[in-house]
C-alpha cells in the first residue's frame, strides 16, 4: 500500500520525469530534508537544477513561480504551511489568477501552489489552519484537495502537467500518513466515481443499505471522518447516508449549480450535511448549502454544517480537539437531521 505522502511524492517525481519544464520552488526543499513534510523528498537529488530551495519569502516565490509559468514552464511552489498562504494572497488574487482573463486570454499561468493545511498536531494558532476557504471564491483559480479514495499523486501530476489554470493544491497534514485505499479496504462500500475535468468525485454508500436519508459531503481528511461516521450512523443509529467526496473544490459549476454527484445524491436524500475543517462562516460548506438551497428550494428539507469553531486553533490538545470537528460532531449533527 502507499501512503498519501508517498503518493504525492511519486506524483511529483512522475511530473519531473515526464516534463523537463517542471520546477519546484520552496523553503527547505533540499535533501536529506526534502521539505518540512517530506513531500518533496529526493527531488533535489534527482533534479538538482530544477529544485530551488528558497529564502523565507512566500510572496516572492509565488510570484517567481507565476513568472516562470507565464513564460512556458510548469513550476510547482511549495508553501511550508498553508497558514502562510495569506502572504501570497496578493500574488494569487491580483496577479496569478488575474492575468489570463485580464490580458484577454493571451497569457496563461499554469503554476501549482502546493501546501499542507489543517490541525490535530498541536502546532498552535498560526500553523494549524484550514484556510483554503479564502481562495475557493477567487475567480480563475482551481483548488484541488486529494483524499484516500483515489490517487493523490496522480491528481497532483495531472494538475501540474495537463491543464493551464493556476492551481492551489491543498494537502491536509493528517492525511499524509494515511494509506491510499484499495478495493479491499473499501469492500463495504458501493462507490460511484465521476470526474470534473480530471479531478475525481466519489460517491459512497454502504453495500446493500436502503435508500439514503441524508447526504454527507466532505473533502480531504474530513472525508475520512465522514466515511467512518457513515458506517457508524448505519450500524449504530440506522441512519443511512450517502457520502460525496470531491477533489475539485473550485471552480464549481458556472451559473450556481451543484456538482453533479452532489446534486444526484440530494435528489433522493433531500438533506445535506457538509463537513469541513475550516472555520464555519463563509466556508466551503456555506457554498454547498447555498447551491443546494437554490437548486432544490423547499425540497431541501434539512441543511447543516459541521466545521471548526470560529476562533484561533489552540495548541493545547484538549482545546484543539474541542475546536476542530470530530467524528462525534458529525454523528450528532446527522442524528439531529433525520
Amino acid at each position, binding site marked *: 500500500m502507499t501512503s498519501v505522502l508517498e503518493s504525492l511524492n511519486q506524483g511529483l517525481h512522475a511530473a519531473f520525469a515526464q516534463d523537463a519544464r517542471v520546477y519546484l520552488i520552496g523553503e527547505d526543499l533540499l535533501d536529506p530534508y526534502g521539505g518540512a513534510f517530506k513531500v518533496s523528498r529526493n527531488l533535489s537529488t534527482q533534479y538538482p537544477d530544477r529544485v530551488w530551495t528558497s529564502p523565507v519569502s512566500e510572496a516572492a516565490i509565488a510570484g517567481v513561480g507565476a513568472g516562470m509559468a507565464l513564460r512556458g514552464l510548469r513550476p510547482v511552489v511549495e508553501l511550508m504551511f498553508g497558514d502562510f498562504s495569506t502572504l501570497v494572497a496578493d500574488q494569487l488574487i491580483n496577479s496569478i489568477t488575474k492575468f489570463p482573463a485580464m490580458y*484577454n486570454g493571451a497569457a496563461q499561468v499554469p503554476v501549482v501552489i502546493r501546501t499542507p493545511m489543517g490541525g490535530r498536531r498541536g502546532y498552535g494558532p498560526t500553523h494549524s489552519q484550514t484556510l483554503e476557504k479564502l481562495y475557493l471564491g477567487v475567480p480563475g483559480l482551481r483548488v484541488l484537495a486529494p483524499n484516500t479514495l483515489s490517487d493523490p499523486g496522480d491528481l497532483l501530476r495531472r494538475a501540474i502537467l495537463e491543464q493551464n489554470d493556476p492551481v492551489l493544491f491543498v494537502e491536509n497534514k493528517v492525511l499524509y500518513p494515511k494509506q491510499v485505499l484499495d478495493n479491499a479496504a473499501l469492500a463495504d462500500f458501493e462507490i460511484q466515481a465521476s470526474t470534473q475535468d480530471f479531478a475525481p468525485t466519489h460517491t459512497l454508500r454502504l453495500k446493500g443499505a436502503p435508500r439514503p436519508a441524508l447526504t454527507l459531503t466532505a473533502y480531504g481528511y474530513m472525508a475520512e471522518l465522514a466515511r467512518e461516521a457513515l458506517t457508524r450512523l448505519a450500524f449504530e443509529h440506522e441512519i443511512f447516508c450517502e457520502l460525496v467526496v470531491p477533489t475539485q473544490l473550485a471552480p464549481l459549476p458556472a451559473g450556481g449549480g451543484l456538482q453533479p454527484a452532489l446534486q444526484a445524491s440530494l435528489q433522493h436524500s433531500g438533506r445535506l450535511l457538509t463537513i469541513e475543517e475550516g472555520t464555519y462562516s463563509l466556508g466551503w460548506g456555506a457554498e454547498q448549502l447555498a447551491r443546494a438551497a437554490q437548486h432544490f428550494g423547499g425540497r431541501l428539507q434539512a441543511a447543516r454544517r459541521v466545521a471548526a469553531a470560529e476562533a484561533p486553533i489552540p495548541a493545547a490538545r484538549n482545546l484543539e480537539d474541542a475546536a476542530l470537528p470530530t467524528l462525534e460532531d458529525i454523528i450528532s449533527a446527522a442524528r439531529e437531521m433525520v
Partner: protein
Amino acid sequence: MSDDAALYTQLATIRRFEETVLDAFPKGAFYGTTHTYIGQEANAAGVLAHLHDGDLVFSNHRCHGHFLAYGGDARALFAELMGKATGVCGGIGGSQHLHWKNFYSNGVLGSTAPIAVGAALAEKRKGSQAVTVLFLGDGAMGEGVVYESLNIASLWGAPVLFVVENNHIAQTTPTELAMAGSLAGRFAAFNIPAVELDSSDAREIYAAAGQEFAQLRSTPGPRALILHTARFGPHSKGDDTRDPAFIEELRATRDPLTIHGARLEESERTAIEAEVDSAIAAAYAQAEADPLPEHAAYVKAGY
C-alpha cells in the same frame, strides 16, 4: 533615420500620446483612470531602445510610455483606454493592465517584481538569451515584495534590469516622506550593482542603459539603473498638489524633448513632430471608430 531622430520620434510619440489622453479625458473619450508619462519620456525611450527581440518588459501603472517605446501600437493603446475591442487587451485591462508580446503591466505597485524575476529565470533556463526589464517607481520601493525579489534575483542570478524611475513623488507624497536611506543602498544591500543617473537627456540615459544591457547580456545576474527624473503632469488627472511654479521650472529645465530636440536640425525636428502629430491623431481617430467589445463572456454568475 539617424539614432537621434529615432530617439526623438519616440519621445515625441509618447508626449503626443499622453497630451492627447489628458486633453480628451475631460471630454469623456476615456473611462476610468490613467497615469501619464509626460516628463519621463527619456527613460522609456533611452532604456528600451536596447531591447532585442524576445526581451521582456514588466511595467507598472504609468505604463503608456513604456508600452509605446517597446513598440506598442498607439491605436491599440488608445482603444484600450477607451474600452474598445481593438484595445491591447480587448478593453478588459484598461490603462494599467497591458500585455502584448513580451510586455506586461499591472496596477498593484511592486507586485510585478517577483514575476519579472521568475520570468527572467525562466528565459535563462530555456536558454533564450532574453533579458528582462522591470520598471519601478520610487513609491513602489515601499513594497516588501520588491526586497524579497531583489534577494532572490541576486541569489539565483536572474537576468533582470531593475529600472527605478525616481520622479521624487508617489501620487502626492514626496520621496523624502516615504523613503529612508537611499535607492542605491537598497540595491547594494542585496549585492546588486546599481548605476545612478540624474538626467532627462535621452542620449545620456541611452548610453547608461547601454552599458547595463551589455553587462546584463554578458554576465549573469541582476543589475539596477536608478533614473532620477521629473513628472510634469498630475499623478492621474488633475490631482497635482505641487506648486505650479515648481512644475514650470521642471518643464523649463528638464524637458526631454527640448533637451534632445536641440540635437536635431529645426527642420528635421518639426518634420518628426508633424509626422508624430498626424500618426497619433490618426491612431486616436481609428480607436474612436473601433467597436466595443462583446460582453458575452462577462455575463453575471447569479442565477
